[in-house]
């Protein structure tokens, strides 16, 4: 029906016509409110960096505790502490 030369022109005219289209308009207020509330509930109480800091402090505390325990057991029984007794020997 249309020749190749005027095909782009058909597209332009169609696009011009399509600009006047009245699409259905959504009402998303209730759903957005719901999704935002779910996000709020899922959001952690602490910021993300606080989790890292807590983890790092926990690791340091565990390491200190273990070294302390080894030192205490070495002092109590020089052959009992596993790592320090190995190092000392």
């Amino acid at each position: 029906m249309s020749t190749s030369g005027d095909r782009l022109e058909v597209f332009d005219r169609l696009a011009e016509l399509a600009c006047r289209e009245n699409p259905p308009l959504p009402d998303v207020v209730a759903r957005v409110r719901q999704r935002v509330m779910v996000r709020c509930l899922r959001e952690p109480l602490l910021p993300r960096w606080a989790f890292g800091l807590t983890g790092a402090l926990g690791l340091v505390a565990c390491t200190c505790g273990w070294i302390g325990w080894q030192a205490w057991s070495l002092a109590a029984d020089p052959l009992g502490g596993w790592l320090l007794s190995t190092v000392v020997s």
Partner: protein
Amino acid sequence: MSSTEVAWQSVGSSVSMLEPPDLDARDVRMSLGGDPDSFERLVRRHQAAIGRLMWRFARNAADQDELTQEVFVTAWTALRTWRGTGSFERWLRRIAVRVGYAYWRRRGKDAARLEFAETVDELVDQGAALVDRERHAADDAAREAGELVHRLLARLSDRDRLVLTLLHLEGLSVAEIGEATGWSQSLVKVQAHRARARLKKLMEAES
């Protein structure tokens, strides 16, 4: 009635001295302060414009609804990044374009091809007949034209499709497209020129 007018009427007389951009700024501030109703007002004010834009990407009511929601939920999570100096509507449009573009990418070009079984030739002939036809009501013709354009553009790459959609269907300027996509203005011009050339080639290839 435009979304701005709806907002204008719905906010009541106590803030009637504020212009819509000021209303946006005020509602963003209040929303960041923890007031959920102010974000709801923002959604109510802009959902028509965003819904209209999302229709260009989805062309079905269910996906349009889902994408519109996604735009507002994304906006809510990123609300702190809006600097308040530019227009809130343009900021939303930038998010909407990203959401729509991601939707196209998720669906993939092949899915669109499979969905639309007709050839480009048939589409162009239908389009030419539609443009010439006088018996259609204006609304029907516009809807049918929108559908045909959507099916034609589905044959192009997502980038070509995006630039032609924003340029020809949304009627945005080169500067506005640049702002919405994050491309430079010269890139928009080059992309639009190449997209039209590829569309022409595609339409001629099947003739």
